């Protein structure tokens, strides 16, 4: 009895119970929706459960690593990621007009996924290293660190990942205290650079933006996704059509219904009530992450925690915004719910870091 208690203690001591419950609740919601979206496809459900198990294992492992060790991994991870991204640019496999995957002999990997974790780590490490007073040139240095991989990912092209990585890097800059004047300046610059960006964008990217502005322009082509998902959400009404009763979903009018557009399935079948509860659940998880962030003891951990939390939120917002038609379709999964292993693992790796920050002894309490 005492043995079991001891094992349980060692097994769970670096796990944040509150956060875990929130995460698992979201994953269960995901499985329930996936069951409906795949038409009760047990294979896919099993596969997703394997994904979840792997991701949970990754989370548990990371949570058990003290932050000092993780901190040491920041630079190598970043450098390896950068090298792999250059590798992709040179030797990557072309799939659907985009060069995102790299065959490294044993397996195929998508280095941009690695960067989702490496960037906030690297930037937090960078600011942590640069002493008390942060000067403009430190911000410029950090920006360069951020822009290098973002540029490579944009070239793949992968607008969604580039946006999310930029966001995660920007959150570090922001939380590190980048002055409002620079933020304002940056905003103006981004707005000003839009015409330039437009000119170097790929046709399909321009198409996505045009389609967002007016989906009806291309109802059978690029606009089809947005129109069908809007119909799915809207027709769900307040109380939804009921589990496995969404006509848009069950009759396959909704595209990508188990991955990027799974939220439309949820919305159609559970309605505004379901959406409200789901947003609240996400808010609770975010809230817990915020508490962990506030409690973090060092600048490095604060920046990391803050960036992971805000990035998590960004995934939610971008995905729901895109599915409900207020953001362009950029191919971002709904965290913890969409079908797929990679994003699940990346996401739980982040939560593992958060748990590590929360549960390992704080070096200094402030």
């Amino acid at each position, binding site marked *: 009895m005492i043995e079991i208690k001891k094992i349980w203690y060692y097994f769970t001591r670096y796990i944040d119970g509150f956060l875990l419950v929130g995460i698992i609740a979201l994953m269960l919601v995901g499985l329930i929706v996936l069951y409906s979206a795949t038409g009760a496809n047990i294979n896919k459900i099993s596969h997703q459960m394997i994904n979840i198990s792997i991701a949970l294992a990754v989370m548990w492992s990371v949570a058990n690593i003290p932050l000092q060790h993780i901190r040491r991994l920041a630079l190598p991870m970043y450098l390896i990621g950068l090298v792999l991204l250059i590798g992709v640019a040179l030797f990557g496999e072309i799939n659907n007009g985009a060069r995102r995957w790299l065959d490294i002999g044993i397996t195929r990997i998508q280095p941009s996924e690695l960067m989702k974790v490496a960037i906030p780590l690297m930037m937090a490490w960078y600011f942590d290293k640069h002493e008390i007073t942060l000067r403009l040139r430190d911000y410029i240095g950090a920006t360069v660190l951020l822009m290098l991989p973002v540029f490579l990912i944009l070239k793949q092209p992968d607008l969604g990942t580039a946006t999310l990585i930029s966001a995660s890097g920007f959150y570090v800059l922001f939380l590190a205290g980048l002055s409002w004047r620079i933020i304002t300046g940056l905003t103006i610059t981004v707005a000003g650079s839009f015409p330039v960006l437009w000119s170097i964008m790929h046709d399909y990217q321009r198409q996505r933006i045009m389609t967002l502005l007016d989906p009806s322009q291309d109802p059978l082509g690029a606009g089809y996704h947005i129109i069908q998902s809007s119909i799915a959400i809207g027709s769900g*009404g307040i109380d939804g059509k009921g589990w496995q009763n969404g006509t848009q979903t069950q009759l396959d009018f909704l595209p990508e219904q188990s991955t990027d557009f799974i939220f439309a399935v949820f919305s159609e079948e559970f309605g505004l009530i379901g959406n409200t509860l789901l947003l609240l659940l996400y808010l609770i998880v975010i809230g817990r992450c915020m508490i962990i962030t506030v409690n973090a003891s060092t600048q490095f951990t604060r920046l990391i925690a803050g960036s992971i939390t805000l990035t998590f939120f960004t995934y939610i917002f971008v995905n729901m915004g895109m599915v409900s038609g207020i953001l362009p379709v950029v191919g971002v999964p709904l965290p913890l719910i969409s079908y797929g292993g990679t994003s699940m693992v990346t996401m739980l790796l982040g939560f593992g870091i958060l748990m590590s920050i929360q549960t390992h002894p704080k070096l200094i309490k402030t």
Partner: protein
Amino acid sequence: MKHKVELRNHPAELHKFRMRLAVSIGFILILFLILYARFYYLQVTQQEHYHTLAEANRITILPLVPNRGLIYDRNGRVLAQNYSAYALEITPSKVPSVESTLDELATLIEITATDRQRFKKLMKESKRFKSLPIRNRLTDVEIATFAANRYRFPGVEIKARVFRQYPEKEIVSHVVGYISRINDQDLEQLELNGELNNYRGSHHIGKIGIEQSYETQLHGITGFEEVETDAAGRSIRVLSRTPPIPGNNLILSLDLGLQEAAEKAFGDRRGALVALDPNNGEVLAFVSKPGYDNNLFIGGIDQENWSLLNNSIDRPLNNRALRGVYPPGSTFKPFMALAALELGKRTPEYSMGDPGYFSLPGVDRRYRDWKPGGHGRVNLHKSLVVSCDTYYYSLANDMGIDNIHNFISQFGLGRKTGIDIEGEVSGLLPSSAWKMNQYKQKWYAGDTISVSIGQGYNLATPLQLAFATMIIANNGKAYLPRLVKQIQNSQTGSIEELPPKLLYSLNLKPKNLEIVKSALVDVTRPGGTAAKAGLNAAYTFAGKTGTSQVIGIKQGERYNEKSINERHRDHAMFIAYAPAEDPKIALAILVENTGTGGSTAAPIARQVFDYFLLGQSPEPEATIAKLTESTEDHGHEHL
């Protein structure tokens, strides 16, 4: 490392971080609110709109085409029917090349040059995304052959279709008409009438004849099936079904046996015959010779057959009974005679000497009688029996054109009768006002002379003449001529009788009618112009012969049948009714380019009457011989 960390954590930095985090939390809440507002907009404000769109996505409405109503003659004999068969259809927009597809198909299934021509004509008339038949009535072997090779032919399909068939072909083609593929013009018309929805799924529409004029009755009401369909277009299940209501069956007043008898009596000659029931206006026979095979038009006629029909010198597509206008010739005289009596211009006793011609006072020109030397003394009775022209020349001059016009127009000449098929023409009954209006010329007395014997400007259709004859036969009742007698409800099977429609009644003096009608009976008796046709009739047979001039004969020339091009020869006319004392049938006959009414048109009437009244088929020689009362045949052939 520890050292470094310690140095970095001062309160100002922490404060700044916390401020930034607070800003972030505000940012998160605001963006979540925006999302929530969007959900609210989609799911509450616009819910109905998106619900409609979702329903439109999943529900496909398939039309269920009703079966077209059948057409029967008055005795229940089928004139138009339906049969189911398989057709091979091509959607031009779905095949890479129509030409090569046809070539390839031809290696599997027999496709004749005619089929190809017909298909090309159809293609020209239809939208490219419409499925068009290349072959109808596939055999089982052909269906199996194609099914095995279907993968090679995207855009080519076998479809079960209901086809129309007209078993009687040319015999009733001018009455029944035909249905054919709906073309762009038809679509426009349907849209104009707001009927487009009822034709979703229909491929054919009545184009002419009964098929056209009773389209609404025959077509029926299209049913609908609501089918739940997935994104790939597969039907998942039927949600609801509104069955189609088949078109109603039509029972015509036409007597197919009578029609056949008339056809037989005509033989190879061109012409028309319209027979009406004087008691109610029902059309008993409606013949236009030659007819055509109306089945050719159903699937779209091929170029070759079309040219053959359209360019034929016999003009088989021309409905002579309905649309052919001819000078009525001497069949006009009974109406003139009645006018003379009713208007007091002649008494029955009045007689005149006929020198064989008539001249207007102070004019040299002689209007000749058909009989050189004239008929001697002629009164009204004799004028009809021998068809004296001179009598009417002089009468017309006394009456004046407008009296003639006003009186005779009461018999329906010069205007449409209103029969229940479309395309009728109004003919012409001239008046001085008409001439002024048409030619800006005043009416000359000479014009009246030709009008009096049904020539000149006079033009009438066989239908109009039958209508006018009916009014004499029934003592003044103008019934609307009707082809459809009954409509059988497709749902209940109940038969709705269409009541006869009395358009108006003429108030004619019985005495005057009696005078004219007794003369018409004598026309078919020895001494009359139709004596040969009336010989030994088992009923009293009243009629009037006529000759309709195709070309004018110049002053001082004689009409010589032999010397004239066959197509320019006179048309034979005959109007008649029987039995004279209680008429059951009234008719008008036109036989083109065959000379006089007595010799060619009147015998047709006799055969038709024999069939109708006695049940005798044409070839009545033996019967007539038995009934013969050794009456001498005058052998005269008259106007």
